[in-house]
């Protein structure tokens, strides 16, 4: 394993020896990771490597079997609600209600996040993602790309300092994917801490300060993104996955 870039004394995310089991199956086998404030980390790995489980535990919607998680200096579990106030999550599911309008969805979430002036803030974020004209339309009528833009608006409503993205490119056409990349680049330039789980090696590398590869519930490899190019990353990733399959059988 290669050395990770230097991290500040108080990491934004500090995970120590995280284990998650489902019955006898080990989804995570002692994952330890530190992420500095403002750092952007891309997590790659084949299906079943434990990436999504890792993100779900960090988001406090799933409990770890053992291990410690500290987010912005606060142990997860002691102050879940205050951590949720600092956290924005964008997944391959939108978390949006089909039969509410774009505006109603955002106002609903704004109220849950105690955002001042929910109506005004909803209009602001709708304008930022270019959906102001569609504010009164039901989400059911939105394309996948528009839904994902609205999901970004939802995640940004409360101006979070931490962003977790779980395969946000799933199902997007090229135009929508390019818009998402532009958005993520902007968020990265604002020095928000970003944890991105993706299968897209090129997109992930372009958006990250550090890349981490998960295999069979463990961190198999990590390196600073600036020390990598697309070709090297691809070669390395496929060698690691193929090696794991040879040793343990197919994982995905």
């Amino acid at each position: 394993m290669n050395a990770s870039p230097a991290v500040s004394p108080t990491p934004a995310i500090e995970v120590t020896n995280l284990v998650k089991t489902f019955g006898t199956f080990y989804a995570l086998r002692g994952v330890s990771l530190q992420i500095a404030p403002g750092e952007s980390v891309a997590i790659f790995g084949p299906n079943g490597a434990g990436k999504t489980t890792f993100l779900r535990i960090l988001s406090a919607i799933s409990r770890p079997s053992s291990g410690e998680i500290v987010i912005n200096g606060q142990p997860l579990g002691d102050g879940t609600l205050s951590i949720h106030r600092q956290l924005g999550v964008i997944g391959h599911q939108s978390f949006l209600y089909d039969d509410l309008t774009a505006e109603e969805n955002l106002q609903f979430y704004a109220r849950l996040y105690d955002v001042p002036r929910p109506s005004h803030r909803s209009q602001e974020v709708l304008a930022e993602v270019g959906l102001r004209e569609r504010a009164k339309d039901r989400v059911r009528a939105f394309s996948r790309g528009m839904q994902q833009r609205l999901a970004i608006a939802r995640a940004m409503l409360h101006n979070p300092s931490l962003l977790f993205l779980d395969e946000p490119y799933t199902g997007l056409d090229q135009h929508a994917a390019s818009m998402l990349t532009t958005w993520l680049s902007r968020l990265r330039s604002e020095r928000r801490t970003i944890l991105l789980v993706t299968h897209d090696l090129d997109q992930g590398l372009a958006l990250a300060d550090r890349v981490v590869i998960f295999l069979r519930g463990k961190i198999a490899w990590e390196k600073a993104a600036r020390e990598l190019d697309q070709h090297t990353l691809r070669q390395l990733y496929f060698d690691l996955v193929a090696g794991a399959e040879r040793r343990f059988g197919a994982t995905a």
Partner: protein
Amino acid sequence: MSELRKLLALIRKDLLTEFRTKEMISSMLMFALIVVVIFNFTFDPGSRATAEAGPGILWVAFTFAGVLGLHRAMVHEVERGCLHGLMLAPVERGIIFLGKAIGNAIFIFLIELPTFLLFSVFFNIDFWKGLDKLAVIFFLGTIGFAAVGTLLSAISVNTRTREIMLPILLFPIEVPVILSAVNATAGALAGKNWNEISGWLKLLAGFDLIFLLVCFVTFEYVLEE
């Protein structure tokens, strides 16, 4: 105060979604009415057997239609990952439970009224004298049913046989509520006074309180894996 605002936002969201589509209420209502109509073919209106079985028939209609609604309400939350959206928000899980349970109770109340009217017409029942008692019984019975139903629908929605799993889990636990509600309804329809049905009402209120507290506290563990 902030938690109250969140609770109201949760309830408003459920009502807005449902009144826009009417998907859940219409299927619950149709189901409840069909139950009453079918039982009407079985019993002679005005007979002693009808008077004895009537309250049971009524609560069979309410509970089966209620199960349909509870299931649909939770499936809506899961479909686009909305339940995860709620879990990620800085809201106590107990408040999410209360919001869903109150929403469910409102939908069940809404189908109880027309179902009861049809029932009283078909079974030739004069309910005017006991209307105040029936209102209290329906309220207490529905609260208890919706509280446990909301908790168990959050469990069953993640199982492979979720449509079947909810009634299997729900009905054994709901026995005290249904038993009390049926007996109190029978008393009210028979023209008994408050004192005579107070035992059942106290039992109903007691179970409501226990179920609400237990469900409020345990909802967090049900949502998390």
